[in-house]
């Protein structure tokens, strides 16, 4: 596909998302906001799974730790400062990922999947069963954080439209940040590790450090998503850290197509959109979702991100890929 066409398409999607609150009902505005948050979450995992070759099945831990951080440090009946709680949540998630990464990145393949899951289960039980999580039912975040910066208030998250735009801006920022990271020298090392880690070592790369940096960054960005999710719904529960959540975000990445940021975003849209649609029809929506995933993996091996190329294969765009 011609890269100009792709950029145009992405800008059109962005424009559509920007106009959406003007036309969508409040229900749909909140739904799309939720999708955008999950898109951030999916992109953060894509950095590991799609670009570095690290299949984590415990990514919800960092999402949930950030969500709990804001719920636990925000005062009960007053607004917390947005910038402070955002930084604290993201730092907490990043620090947790750094610490876990020190251990799990010493393993490979199936063992890596197992130990990331094991750490996430431990985090789940900490919030579910200990005093730190207060109650196994969760905690309310009664008041949305206040965006004041040195006495100036640029926007208010109490207004659903402004909250939506804040989330959209965060999604766009994460997309742009990761796009830069992936083409930077650091990102190329991750691609090299994905392709052939042994060779990277013999070329002189201390691959463990690079993987640890990627794991920490992915955890911090999952933290951005978890933070926004807590603010959007005003509520946190241990379920945010559950392995269902880790599995769902992995499915979004796979559905979207490994190795594509835009694919991760598309995967979040498709997954949550279908979830919403199926759960309207039946309470056994998981069955339908399972069928869709199986069909997608069988018939769409490159995911949603690969669809345009497959559709336009007959058209010669002048780009040679073989």
């Amino acid at each position, binding site marked *: 596909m011609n890269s100009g066409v792709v950029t145009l398409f992405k800008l059109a999607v962005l424009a559509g998302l920007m106009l959406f609150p003007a036309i969508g009902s409040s229900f749909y505005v909140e739904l799309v906001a939720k999708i955008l948050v999950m898109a951030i979450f999916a992109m953060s995992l894509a950095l590991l799974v799609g670009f570095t070759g690290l299949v984590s099945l415990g990514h919800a831990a960092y999402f949930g730790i950030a969500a709990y951080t804001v719920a636990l440090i925000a005062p009960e009946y007053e607004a917390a400062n947005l910038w402070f709680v955002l930084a604290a949540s993201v730092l907490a998630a990043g620090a947790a990922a750094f610490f876990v990464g020190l251990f799990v990145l010493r393993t490979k393949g199936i063992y890596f999947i197992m130990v990331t899951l094991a750490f996430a289960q431990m985090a789940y039980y900490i919030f579910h069963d200990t005093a730190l999580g207060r109650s196994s039912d969760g905690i309310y975040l009664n008041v949305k954080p206040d965006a004041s910066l040195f006495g100036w208030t640029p926007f208010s998250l109490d207004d659903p439209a402004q909250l939506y735009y804040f989330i959209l801006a965060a999604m766009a920022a994460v997309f742009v940040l990761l796009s830069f990271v992936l*083409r930077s*020298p*650091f990102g190329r090392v991750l691609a*090299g590790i994905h*392709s052939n880690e*042994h*060779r990277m070592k013999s*070329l*002189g790369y*201390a691959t463990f450090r690079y993987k640890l940096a990627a794991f920490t960054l992915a955890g911090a960005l999952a933290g951005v998503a978890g933070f926004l999710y807590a603010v959007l719904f005003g509520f946190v529960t241990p379920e945010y850290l559950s392995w269902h959540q880790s599995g769902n975000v992995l499915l979004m990445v796979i559905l979207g197509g490994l190795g594509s940021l835009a694919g991760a975003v598309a995967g979040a849209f498709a997954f949550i959109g279908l979830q919403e649609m199926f759960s309207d029809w039946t309470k056994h929506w998981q069955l339908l979702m399972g069928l869709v995933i199986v069909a997608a993996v069988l018939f769409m091996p490159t995911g949603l991100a690969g669809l345009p190329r497959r559709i336009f294969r007959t058209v010669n765009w002048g780009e040679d890929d073989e």
Partner: protein
Amino acid sequence: MSEAMLVADRLTRHFGGLTANLEVCITLERGKLHALLGPNGAGKSTCINMLSGDLPPSAGRILLEGQDVTGLDSAERSHRGIGRSYQRTNIFPQFTVLENCRLAAQSRRPRPWRIFTDAMKTRDTVERARAAIVEAGLGGREQRKAGLLSHGEQRQLEIAMVLATDARVLLLDEPLAGMGSEESAQMVELLRELKQNRAILLVEHDMDAVFAVADTITVMVEGSVLESGPPEQIRNSEEVQAAYLGEEEHG
């Protein structure tokens, strides 16, 4: 011996009950090419793997310019100036030839924090990579996907990648295997040039090539050094004839 760069001091490696290397001693000198010969399974690759840090020795030491590097991993040894190529092609098949070599060059100029810099536009790494590609005889192939190169070209790419890391000690495991005669001759020429300011260990089955460039030859059989010396001595050695060179006529 004053120019000794890399010294293998009684390197031994066991695989379960099998002794793949037994007290192997090899000295690589700057400006010299040392060839390591031996029949299949003699332990040549195992020896290279220990020197490069891919495989820990069971016993023995490795000295680089007098310093003990036995405990360093392959990445650290690479930074000390040891570079290697692999017998079984070991490249990044999905990347272009240029990107394979650029990654190699980038390991000397890592810039991990420059996340807003486009790696493909870091001029010093791209230039180093291009020079290495031309040196290894792959000029014009920069934009090809490495996995689509012919086998011989992939061997050349292996060499280009080592060159791009500016290694001073080259450990080359059968670089000529699968190359056409023209490419082979070109590679022998390159080896002659490369050895001028480097130390090279060459494992190779192509006898014409070995005798054309080697300054010293070590012959291994079943994990042990059978004989080591200048090419003339090896050529005329009856032991070597019996153990190795004789049967090579058929291969």
